[in-house]
């Protein structure tokens, strides 16, 4: 029976490409991090970079101190931060797409990232950000938390204690729109001062320029903890794909899972936006593309999304730094510019395959 053989062949092809992606994930991560620390306007070879790192880690002074500074204090924290932020945003997208059973869900949908943006913009506008390094991330985190809690409290109130998925989505979208309009308003009144206005616009584009170890220490742990919370719900997210009733049937406490996933995602997104601005497209595209290749089981999809999102943002940041060097393009522009065609190509190809199948 040819159809069955075709099925089997297609299934094994699909499995093979899934395994290839899984096997390539870690080498790709290492490769992109190495590239990010060696590529840049200051020419430093891989060997020199390793030597500089060795000096730094062993405590012996480097005869070429500037190399050590560039590698250790500029490129490495920036690359690692990009990786953690990209990974976190992709994990958040994977979790939300699963939770809402909607491929269009992304970290913006709960109002978390837009709330974070508003908090950060207020910190810049109020002048706090100019006075203390931590003020901007703190404002951003506060904005994320306030919006996430508000979304949740309203959804729980409407459901008389139970939180329904559709309600969560609608309230998230509404509060997100509110945060965006407030942000735009703050931006419009801040345009009187060229400096503040420019800073806000730049921050809103999302970027990794000038990020240091402090940013990594500030945002990294929260992103990792939030991602771990999401990963711990992998099987529950799988079951939720069946619909809430069937998920209940297989023993899932749907309300509890929803709370945990939303809290985990809020932590990830709040922290990521706090340190890198609202880098768009990662949370939408990376998990979506990976799901097409490796399937929707979250135990595989969530960790791969972390690595995939990390690789994607670090690679985009390499472009951002080198394409128009010494000028920099905000990495959020590059992620959108790279992400859109890849996303559309995959979408069209898959639709075509589905039609001819």
């Amino acid at each position, binding site marked *: 029976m040819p159809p*069955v053989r075709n*099925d*089997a062949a*297609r*299934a094994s092809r699909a499995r093979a490409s899934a395994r290839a992606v899984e096997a390539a994930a870690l080498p790709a991560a290492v490769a992109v991090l190495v590239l990010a620390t060696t590529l840049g306007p200051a020419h430093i070879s891989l060997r020199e970079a390793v030597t500089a790192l060795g000096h730094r880690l062993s405590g012996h002074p480097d005869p070429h101190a500037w190399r050590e500074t560039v590698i250790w204090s500029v490129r490495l924290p920036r690359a690692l931060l990009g990786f953690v932020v990209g990974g976190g945003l992709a994990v958040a997208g994977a979790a939300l797409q699963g939770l809402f*059973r909607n491929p269009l869900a992304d970290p913006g949908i709960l109002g978390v990232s837009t709330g974070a943006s508003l908090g950060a913009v207020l910190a810049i506008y109020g002048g706090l950000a100019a006075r203390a390094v931590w003020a901007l991330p703190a404002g951003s985190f506060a904005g994320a938390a306030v919006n996430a809690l508000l979304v949740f409290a309203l959804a729980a109130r409407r459901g008389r204690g139970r939180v329904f998925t559709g309600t969560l989505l609608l309230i998230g979208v509404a509060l997100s729109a509110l945060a965006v309009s407030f942000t735009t308003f703050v931006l419009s009144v801040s345009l009187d001062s060229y400096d503040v206005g420019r800073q806000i616009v730049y921050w809103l584009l999302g970027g990794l320029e000038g990020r240091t170890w402090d940013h990594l220490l500030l945002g990294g742990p929260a992103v990792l903890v939030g991602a771990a919370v999401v990963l*711990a719900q992998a*099987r529950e997210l*799988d*079951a939720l*794909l*069946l*619909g809430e*009733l*069937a998920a*209940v*049937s*297989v*023993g*899932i*406490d749907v309300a509890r899972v929803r709370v945990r996933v939303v809290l985990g995602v809020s932590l990830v997104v709040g922290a990521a936006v706090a340190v890198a601005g609202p880098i768009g497209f990662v949370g939408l595209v990376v998990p979506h593309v990976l*799901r097409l290749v490796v*399937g*929707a*089981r979250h135990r595989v999809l969530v960790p791969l999304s972390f690595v995939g999102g990390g690789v994607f943002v670090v690679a985009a940041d390499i472009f951002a730094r080198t394409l128009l060097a010494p000028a920099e393009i905000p990495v959020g522009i590059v992620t959108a510019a790279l992400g859109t065609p890849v996303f559309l190509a995959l979408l069209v190809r898959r639709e075509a395959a*589905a039609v001819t*199948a």
Partner: protein
Amino acid sequence: MTSLLAAEGVTFGYPGREVLRDVSFALSAGELVALCGPNGVGKSTLLRLLIGLHAPRAGRVALGGASLGSLRRREIARRVALLPQESPPDLPLTARETVALGRLPHLGRSEPERPADVAAVEAALAATDTAALAERPMTELSGGERHRVHLARALAQEAPVLLLDEPVAGLDLVHQLQALELLRATVGGAARAAVVALHDLSLAARYCDRILLLAGGALRADAPPAAVLTPETLAGVFGVRAEVRADEAGRPYVVPLAPLPRGP
């Protein structure tokens, strides 16, 4: 014999609207019971109460002696499986992955599938005639094929009590009969029992031991098909003029003839 599942005076409603009033029945091992009644009478609601998704406002649901409210979700899931009426049409999983989700109540948090789980999935796929579809994405299957895969998920759960909400809606004739034969065989073997919400009274009469007839929020009948399916009952509950005939094995079947004019 103790019952696998029992509803004891179950009453449920939303503020200002009572849905079910004082519903009591028991389900014993080996039984296949049909749940019938007009649209919107609360069949799906009753099934949700039986799996503990809603808590009754009065009365209780007992699962082998324990009250449903005192059990954790996973414990309930090892003893009751529910096949909902509708399933998402765009499930991004293969048929096998879908069926394997039925094993979740038996697996620890990060425990990998054991041979017993793989065997249960294979058995459920084979029983529902979906083994050949196992590696196909659910999005590429027809509605009927998808439905059988979801039935396989419920079977793979290996719960003693199966609750099925309209499991034959959308299936062609042969798969309707196969699905009910399968349920009959499933409850016949192990110490299992099933409640099946059915619109087709003739199918219910042919395969089920008893019919639970819901009308106006209350249980109007809980008896063997021949006792429930009378022209008078059909007129009173469904508002139709109908003939009840007997097939060659003497089982009743229903021929609906015309809707009755609405009473005053």
